[in-house]
């Protein structure tokens, strides 16, 4: 089965207040060192996969440059990365090749470079079409810039564009959100991601919200109920516009779902490179048919460049079954119980009979023709659903690999 490749670029022009990723603002002198590091990792991919006990696969049908903001890299640096990818893997001609870009960074030279690198899909971190909302969290672009960037990409031949929006930004109201949704529909992009603002200790805004303060416009952040309303509003508006929900946070016109991201939810193999990059490969040595290994690099740039080892987790049969449910249920297509039975055996479904009955009764999931799906309410309470699919044990953890 062909691989998906993920390359993490943890650099940004500014760090947004809601950002809970290991990305940040670093000096340009680091960029070169980092690209060199990625070139080495890509060249050593097979060795790394083997060392981690995974079955290596040179065929690649999706590439995703995420971040951070990969578009802050210089054109020659991007070119070197793609050269390293193509030099070490067999990339299918039709491979979906996505680069995440910040609106306002798409200079003509960058667009040309993207085309030259074979990039055919761009994901834009728009967050909101209301300038006050996007600037309140530290975005540097405006609605006008976003619209111009979309036009520029189209003119260059990249029409596979995804727009990220956030529900729950400071100052957001149902009215302003309706405006953002109307704008995104009007751009006719084929793919939209709608993320509800995550409030946790890993972002500045999250910490401020937890502390109940007023920095970063935290006191203008919609409450949980309103955010849930905004999400439902988005689901409704986008579905009506033909941009159908296919995952909790993702919407696409027919045939334009993200091939790369689908791999995560359907447990297809992938390899990640760079800071905080995760990989999953079938286990090379195990006699268990569903065993896999998952491994990840450290989330600290200095440690990564200093050669910090990857951490490995074995995914055994039970963990694979659990993931099949809690990842697969994220998709609107749901989880086919017949398929699960076929792949893992009867007990993989029978063990959840009581859980499923319970969740159906609570109207969090529905079971139709042996396919289990979240209800719209279940989508908003999906963590309450997913935790029920965790068995009473933790996955076995090995020591650090190399």
């Amino acid at each position: 089965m062909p691989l998906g490749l993920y390359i993490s670029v943890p650099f940004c022009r500014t760090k947004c207040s809601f950002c809970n990723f290991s990305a940040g603002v670093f000096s340009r002198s680091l960029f070169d060192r980092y690209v060199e590091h990625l070139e080495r990792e890509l060249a050593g991919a097979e060795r790394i996969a083997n060392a981690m006990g995974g079955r290596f696969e040179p065929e690649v049908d999706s590439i995703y440059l995420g971040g951070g903001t990969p578009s802050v890299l210089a054109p020659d640096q991007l070119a070197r990365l793609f050269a390293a990818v193509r030099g070490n893997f067999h990339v299918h001609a039709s491979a979906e090749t996505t680069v995440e870009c910040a609106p306002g960074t798409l200079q003509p030279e960058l667009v040309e470079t993207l085309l030259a690198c074979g990039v055919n899909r761009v994901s834009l971190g728009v967050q909101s079409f209301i300038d006050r909302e996007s600037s309140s969290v530290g975005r540097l672009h405006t609605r006008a810039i976003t619209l111009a960037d979309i036009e520029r990409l189209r003119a260059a031949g990249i029409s596979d564009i995804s727009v990220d929006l956030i529900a729950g930004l400071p100052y957001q109201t149902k009215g302003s959100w309706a405006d953002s949704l109307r704008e995104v529909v009007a751009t006719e992009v084929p793919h939209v991601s709608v993320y509800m603002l995550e409030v946790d200790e890993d972002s500045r805004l999250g910490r401020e919200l937890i502390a109940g303060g007023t920095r970063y416009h935290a006191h203008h952040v919609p409450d949980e109920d309103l955010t849930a309303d905004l999400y439902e509003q988005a689901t409704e508006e986008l579905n009506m516009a033909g941009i159908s929900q296919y995952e909790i946070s993702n919407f696409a016109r027919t045939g334009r779902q993200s091939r790369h991201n689908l791999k995560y939810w359907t447990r297809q193999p992938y390899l990640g490179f760079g800071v905080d990059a995760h990989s999953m490969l079938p286990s090379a040595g195990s006699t268990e048919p569903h065993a896999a290994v998952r491994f990840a690099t450290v989330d600290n740039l200095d440690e990564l460049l200093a050669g910090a080892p990857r951490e490995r987790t074995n995914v055994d049969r039970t963990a694979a079954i659990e993931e099949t449910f809690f990842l697969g249920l994220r998709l609107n297509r749901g989880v086919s119980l017949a398929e699960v039975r076929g792949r893992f055996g009867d007990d993989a479904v029978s063990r959840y009979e009581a859980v499923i009955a319970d969740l159906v009764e609570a109207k969090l999931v529905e079971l139709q023709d042996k396919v289990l799906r979240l209800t719209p309410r279940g989508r908003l309470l999906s963590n309450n659903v997913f935790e029920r699919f965790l068995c009473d044990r933790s996955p076995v953890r090995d020591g650090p690999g190399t």
Partner: protein
Amino acid sequence: MDCAFIRNFAIIAHIDHGKTTLSDRLLELTGALSAREMLGHEQVLDAMDLEKERGITIKAHSVRMLYTAEDGNTYQLNLIDTPGHVDFSYEVSRSLASCEGALLVVDATQGVEAQTLANSYLAINHGLEIIPVINKIDLPSADIERTKEMIESTIGLDASRSLAISAKTGIGVHEVLEAIVQRIPHPKGNPDIPLQALIFDSWFDSYRGVGVLARVVNGRMYQGQKIRLMSNGKAFEVESMGVQMPKPVEIRELSAGEVGFFFATMKNVADTKIGDTVTDDTHPALEPMPGFEELKPMVFAGLYTVDSHEHTLLRDALEKLRLNDSSFFFEPESSVALGFGFRCGFLGLLHMEIIQERLEREYNLDLIVTAPGVRYMVTLTDGAIIEVDNPSKWPDPTLIEKVNEPIITATILTAEEYVGGILKLVEEKRGRQKNFEYVSANRVMLTYELPLNEIVLDFYDKLKSVSRGYASLDYHLSGWWESPMVKLDILVAGDAVDALSIIIHKDHAQERGRALVSKMRELIPRQQFEVAIQAAIGAKIVARETVGALRKNVIAKCYGGDISRKRKLLEKQKEGKKRMKRIGKVDIPQEAFLAVLRVSEES
């Protein structure tokens, strides 16, 4: 020793008025401890950490000093250190019954406090010779004359012969020793009649069994003697005896008038009840000493461990503490909200706090205490009378004919400016005024009857806050009132949370119900469905709030990099739910119960 050369005395003082410093100074002057030994051994008498920290005495002690007076004779001075808190007033009375005199220590900068007053009256009632000692005269704000006035006006003692001293600097301490010899009468026991010895404290020693502190009133007690406890008739053999000087010194005999400790073959501290009389088993006395009472707990609460796995540790710790303190009782109880715990009875609030603190410190337990309550006399419609000290055992309202609740008489001493606030507080607490008296220019003594139930809930803290700490309180149990008491339950989605039920006066039920319900609403996490939180008396709902249904609990972003992390998050969430307590269909974190229990203490 000839009784003529023995003096037995206690020291009565309010917290921080200098009792311990004076004791130390007396020990030093009589050579029982050298000044060098005193250094770094400050406050020799209060040995327990808690006693030192709080500046209070919990267990009684006695120290024997030898003093050669100005008349050339050497006297045996026995200082009997008594507990100084209202919860232990019975113990105090037994200690005082072992003395012929007392030093009344009053801080020259503070004046007489309620505690001093109560213990002084106790001492006067026992016929003790009281020597007023005005302490801290070295401080600039000392006012000796005013202090004397207060001693005369509040206690009614002649203060003309009071001693003015500074225990800290040593000024006047020699005169205290002379006054003890000259003014306190010697004991009047007869060593040649059958033994009568008064028990005023006992403790458990893991090597030697139960140790007993006693005052021999008549007769003799000696090693190897077969003795008998008059309250229960149990006989034991005296194995060893001693006195504290203040280090323990073994002796062979105690005779009439003397004070000391002994170990017999006793294994159970509950056998040696304070106030009981020890006599000779073969030649018993005809009568025990008067004044013996069986101690009954007055304050009740449930004790639980935060970590339910520590339940057996709590039981072991309670058993060990009980070895040393037979005045509190415990029995297992269980609560849906809090798991397995114990219903405990205490002499009073301080006693409860002390037990709780000792459990937490000495046994390293993290405890939850339910709202303290008292014991009610409930008359049922069929005429039966039952005692109820646990809300879970409260009868159905339709079966109750009437309820009687324990009443205390409280004495509050305070400065004039706080009287308004205090009056308001005692009225809120259903108090009835018995007396209102100016004891000096701006000091007021209030006497009130109050339900004990109102005192145990939060009275101390409120009194402290309305008086900014300038009010002292003493109380004693003084009777019963018939009151319309009801059981207030807190219901979550229709199910009662047992740990939060309280017995309360009907007129206060709604207000407290509202407070508890609104606090619960803040603390209960939103569930998948709407949850009603209600306060109810029987079937009648008196307050209600609603926790809205949970709208969203979702991981918005879940891509390759997040799967392990999200799994951990889900596992954590699942673990958290396991630790929650389930009331009906509602998961409630234990912290919510803790917070509510704390609120009910504060509000």
